[in-house]
């Protein structure tokens, strides 16, 4: 009985207060009132406001203004462009093509587009474009190295080892130290051509060029209209064999038009006109003597 303490006023919740209290304690009602309803009201309000055309305009204008201010920040300015690893001609050409007006904001700079544009140059193997600290656009370029000159139907071109065009040239003597290759399909077999040229080092003075035949095998053109026809496979070995024959019997010094090595088991030669006439005379003599 002592534990009982009569309250000063005889408080008791009314029936409605009691029911509301119990309703508030039920979890579904509580979650609805505390989360779903406020979220619905806020989301609905935002949606209603955003559906007005005027407010969309307002948002867009604010966005534009903010972007403009950001663009004008000195920290975002790019003042110059540096090109590394490219020849002076290529650098000039890149500057001309990109045509960037400095100073400009880094936000307007589309590095991906610059990369695509620079990579489109024949002489560029790889480009690394980035903005360095201090407001400079840096293009680090790896240039292609020409190894051969290719003569085709459209003219002369410099090619790198992968057969990719490095530059178009008009004159053969633009790059006299590079070997000449010709005909369609030659660009696909440049390593082989280079190997053949390397093997033909002793004939360097007489070598005019390599001609791709039927996009499958090489002919070696020498001065004096001499031609060495090489097989599809083992071209380098065949070339070395020709050189060995030349050393043994001065093969190339004779009046021979074509050395046909296409069948490695049976090298064949085609004589020049004079040699053939001499051979005929010789055969006639032999015949007369035998008669």
């Amino acid at each position, binding site marked *: 009985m002592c*534990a*009982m303490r009569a309250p000063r006023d005889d408080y*008791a919740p009314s029936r409605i207060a009691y029911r509301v209290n119990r309703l508030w304690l039920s979890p579904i009602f509580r979650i609805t009132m505390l989360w779903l309803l406020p979220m619905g009201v806020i989301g609905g309000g935002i949606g209603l406001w955003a559906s007005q055309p005027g407010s969309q305009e307002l948002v867009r204008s604010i966005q534009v203004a903010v972007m403009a201010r950001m663009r004008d920040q000195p920290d975002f300015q790019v003042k110059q462009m540096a090109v590394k690893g490219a020849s002076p001609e290529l650098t000039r050409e890149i500057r001309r093509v990109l045509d960037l007006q400095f100073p400009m904001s880094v936000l307007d700079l589309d590095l991906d587009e610059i990369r695509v544009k620079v990579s489109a140059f024949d002489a560029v193997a790889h480009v690394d474009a980035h903005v360095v600290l201090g407001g400079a656009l840096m293009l680090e370029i790896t240039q292609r190295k020409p190894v051969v000159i290719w003569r085709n139907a459209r003219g002369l071109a410099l090619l790198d080892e992968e057969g990719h065009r490095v530059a178009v040239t008009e004159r053969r003597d633009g790059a006299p130290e590079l070997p000449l290759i010709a005909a369609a399909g030659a660009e696909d077999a440049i390593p082989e051509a280079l190997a053949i040229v390397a093997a033909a080092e002793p004939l360097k003075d007489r070598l005019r060029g390599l001609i791709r035949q039927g996009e499958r095998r090489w002919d070696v053109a020498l001065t004096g209209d001499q031609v060495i026809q090489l097989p599809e496979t083992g071209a380098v070995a065949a070339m070395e064999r020709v050189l060995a024959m030349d050393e043994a019997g001065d093969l190339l010094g004779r009046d021979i038009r074509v050395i046909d090595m296409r069948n490695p088991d049976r090298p064949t030669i085609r004589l020049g006109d004079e040699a053939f006439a001499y051979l005929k005379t010789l055969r006639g003599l032999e015949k007369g003597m035998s008669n």
Partner: protein
Amino acid sequence: MIDLYETQRAMRQMRKAAMQRGVVAILDLGTAQTTCLILRFDGGHLPGNDGVGPLAGQSRFRVIGAATTRSRGMRFGEIDVMQETERALRTVVQAAQKMAQVRVDHAIACFSGAGPRSYGLAGQIDLAGDSVRESDIAAVLASCEVPDLGPDRTILHAQPVNFALDHRSGLTDPRGQVGNTLAADLHLLSVDAGVVRNLLHCVKRCDLELAGIASSAYASGISALVEDEQSIGAACIDMGGGTTGISIFMRGHMIYADSVRIGGAHVTSDISKGFGISLGLAEKIKCYHGGLVPTGRDDRDMIELTGETGDWEHDRREISRSELIGIMRPRVEETLEAVRERLDAAGFEALPSQKIVLTGGASQVPGLMGLAARMLGHQVRLGRPLRVQGLPQAATGPGFSAAVGLSMFAAHPQDEWWDFEIPAERYPGRSLRRAVKWLKENW
């Protein structure tokens, strides 16, 4: 009978639903205070390897909300003014819900009044040498002859307390044993039906589903008696505000319950009448200065009485503590005498153990121990409710033993008559079960 079966069975179903929800309210509707405890059941998993046992079944639940308030509209443990009682119930349920932060839909209630009357019933069936099955237990319980309870009475508890198989008595669970005759003793507690109806209505008005009702004397006995006392035999005297409940336990079962319609509120009203003061003040000086055994010092121990009548002489009186004791003691003696009479009528002295445990709010008056020992016998002690998990310190006093006992009753209800299947012969009308049974027997 069938009517009551249905109500009680419905309550058991409700209790099952409450267990599934895991939250149930315990309502103790007393004359002086109304208590609500909210229990959370954790699915009954026991701690595995830390060496803690089931702790008498209390580890299954936890008190998460507790509130108590002054009762309103209650007299002698019965609802007197329903609107007022409903207000008290709303107050206490809302406060407990606020503490628990959970909404509770099921309630188990206990009350002390309604004139409980105990009956001991006996039933017997022939087993014909078969082993005892669950249906046999139902049959033997059904064979108990129900006495005439009187007009407008209903059954509150009907618990099997003893089973006997042939000549072996004292079986707690005879299932699976073989014998020829199965006999059962049933303790039946009847109360006024109107009081129970009022209680049902009142709880329903508070949007709660009633998942069980119990006598508060029984609930107090569960929590205030320790396990040994329950099994050896003891009486629990729940001294409440308007009634004093008596329950006698033996071998773990309640075998007798009664109530005396005298309580602490009568002591307060005696003081109020004797000194001509308000009930509130009387209650206050009873709590602060009350006692039962006068000493020489009490003559000099003056208590100031205040009042708002406007009469200066009347409002500035002083009484000595011995005068207060002189008013309180006869009423408490009368209560204990009435309890003694009831215990004698129940044949308590024939029991092997004469242990008496005093609990309830009115048992806190100083000197009660000595007085009760003189009037009821020497084996008297003051009992407090068992400590249950999560119970606030403020609710551990003897005034809460009924509420705590009801919590334990909610966790582990005693098997009652209606927990067993009704035997087919007793089932009303043409039931399907009867048809099935006939088919089973004849095919």
